[in-house]
């Protein structure tokens, strides 16, 4: 008879998730305008030092970032909040009887607000890009298995989507060289390939839990959702804090239910978790918000100092 194999979570993956959660929380709660800048800088620096196996994501991420930044600047310049400052340009104005007027004078205040919102949007995109760059599709899927149990099968294609996009982008030069460049259709290919990978993951399905545990998970999700909603409505916590706490509770409960083992392969794997804890501690101690933002830069310093391990990753 085979020994039961408990799912193994790598502490590095938990650390990346924690750091991204803390950065996300900082973006929504910090008053410092440096927070989005620090998040973007950290993401760019980490991008260069981690996730070589998922090379190819740069081009799609840059495209998405350009679209997001342009959209935010244009939207806020046209209808955005913020006023004051000097008038830079007077746009044609149009307004309906009720609602925000579109166009009108473009002031430095409105432009500054637009840039700040664009930076914030880019920072969110950077966090998303960072998680798919630093955590492989399988590890994301395993994390999903642990947290969501049987319901994870619905999210598995999402876990593999970025990795498949990177693979398709890497294959593009080959197709072009063979005269098949016109046949590259990233979106349908990503959807189909991510689904195939999810099916492949199911074929070695690590989650086989009984109905009782599934019922416990459903109850937990309901309880966490209700609690988070109540806390947010009652203004005990902000919506972001309540959501993050809910996810944290579900993650810990999932780890207990699936008896997951947390694996530390090397000391450097602890860096994201330690950096997340540092930023969280500073925020809780209510130190200066700029200092909290700057603490986010500790992570790229660590990842630059310790090169990525490309050899044997899994041990007995």
């Amino acid at each position: 008879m085979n020994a039961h194999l408990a799912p193994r979570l790598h502490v590095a993956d938990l650390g990346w998730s924690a750091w991204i959660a803390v950065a996300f929380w900082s973006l929504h709660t910090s008053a410092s305008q440096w927070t989005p800048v620090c998040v973007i800088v950290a993401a760019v620096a980490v991008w260069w030092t981690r996730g070589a196996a998922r090379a190819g994501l740069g081009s799609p991420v840059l495209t998405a970032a350009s679209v997001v930044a342009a959209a935010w600047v244009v939207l806020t310049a046209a209808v955005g909040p913020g006023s004051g400052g000097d008038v830079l340009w007077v746009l044609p104005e149009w307004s309906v009887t009720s609602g925000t007027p579109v166009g009108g004078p473009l002031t430095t205040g409105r432009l500054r607000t637009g840039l700040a919102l664009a930076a914030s949007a880019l920072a969110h995109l950077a966090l998303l890009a960072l998680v798919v760059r630093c955590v492989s599709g399988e590890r994301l899927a395993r994390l999903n298995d642990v947290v969501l149990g049987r319901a994870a099968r619905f999210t598995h294609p999402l876990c593999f989507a970025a990795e498949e996009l990177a693979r398709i982008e890497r294959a593009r030069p080959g197709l072009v060289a063979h005269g098949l460049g016109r046949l590259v259709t990233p979106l349908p290919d990503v959807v189909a390939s991510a689904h195939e990978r999810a099916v492949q993951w199911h074929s070695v399905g690590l989650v086989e839990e009984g109905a009782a545990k599934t019922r416990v998970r459903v109850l937990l999700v309901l309880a966490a959702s209700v609690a988070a909603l109540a806390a947010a409505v009652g203004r005990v916590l902000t919506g972001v804090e309540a959501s993050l706490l809910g996810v944290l509770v579900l993650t810990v409960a999932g780890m207990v239910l699936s008896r997951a083992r947390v694996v530390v392969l090397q000391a450097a794997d602890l860096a994201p978790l330690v950096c997340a804890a540092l930023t969280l501690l500073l925020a809780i101690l209510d130190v200066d918000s700029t200092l909290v933002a700057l603490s986010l830069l500790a992570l790229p310093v660590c990842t630059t100092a310790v090169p990525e391990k490309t050899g044997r990753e899994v041990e007995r």
Partner: protein
Amino acid sequence: MTVSIDALAVWLPGRGIAVGPVSFDIRGLTLLTGRSGTGASAVAGALGGVLPAGALVRGSWRSQGVTIRYVGVSRLDPLLDMSVAEALGGAGREAEQLWMSVTGLEDLGASMRELDPATCAVLPALRGVLRASAARDRGEETLLVLDQPMTDLLPDLRVGLARALRRCADGGVDICWVEHDLAVAVPQSDHVVELLGGGDAVVHPAEQWSPRTLPLPPEAVLSRALGSPRAAWWDLETLGRHPLVTSAVPTVHPAFGRAHSSVTTVCVPAERAGVGFDLDVVVGETLGVVPADGDRARALSVARRLAATLDAEGRPRPPLTWPAHVPLGRLARTWCGARGGDAAAALDRAALLAPVDHARTLAQHSPGERRAVAWALSAASTRTEVLDRPEAGLDAEGRRLMAAALRSEDSGTATLVVSHDPEFLVRACHRLLVLPPAADGPDARAVLGPPVLVAEHLPHPPALRRAGSRALRVRDVWKDAR
């Protein structure tokens, strides 16, 4: 336990009737085979419940109280980021013994990404064996359904897996095994179900089976021709004791360049070829590149460098991953637009080997059908193409036809074949280039020559060589007998 399949028919969207209605029993280790397109995989998919959405299944099989475990063809690229133990679903003694017995490796903690993809390809089937055995130990009636688990495996692993399946069946698990490698599968099977198409199937005990639509493997053909009893058809030792086999002399064909008066030879410098000597490649020949240590990536790299030199290109073309989600008709038109050739004719050629449909994508075809398409498109190309395991997944007749075409057709370009299948290589290639193991160091020289001279250097020699004959092909022995 017997699982009785009664008038099973499958209709697949975009394909029509894939199989049936067929009826047969699954007892012990039952091999399901037939020409590509006769629906063996559709039967396996129906039993395993993995047919695509919209598929219609008629007929019945007794499945109440029977746990069905299905193992299908899985992707090799990219490999899952998990350990062998995780892929096997356990790290116990049984898993360790099974892994050791099939692969010769001991470490269950190794990551799949550190192993050769051809080794990792055996993991889904082994997982299926372990799970089915565990279910049997719990007293559950279990049917293990395997759909072409050997497609991507090296010859030695194929033998190891077949033996593991035999042991599993001996332990009380019923197995339905869809397979095209008859030389490995038939000797281990209890029964053979050959699908003939159009709803016809013939069922025989393995020791009495003779194929209706497929060519027998060479050892079985020769044993039959020499009058051996059916039970000894697959036994190389018995075959090797026959005086005609031991005394047979292989037919040496003239070298490709000498047989054709107007041939062009391109010299690939040693440093470019990376094989330790200047390599003359004859335009029009089929050259097999075989890694002695099974390192397919290295063989592909050498083949791509040779192709680039032959086409006078500065550097090798990047490896091609065929777009899997484009309709075949469009793929063929685009390919032929860039490389020359007639798209419709190319797909018609592919259809000789396996059923292909212009409107469906490569992903909607079986692995064998995809290989047939890749081969046909490469054959239409006016440039030197590298074929990566072109025979994998094809049925025996498809492999025979492809080998004959590669060997005999006049072509304006050379064709480079990277493969591990010795029978295919010696039949398809004019010459073989056997690369030394990487462990021998950079100064080790490759071996180049016609199959007759080089076959003994192959990592897994052809069946007749393993039987002790100098001949490679049945007709070499048979001509002496006559």
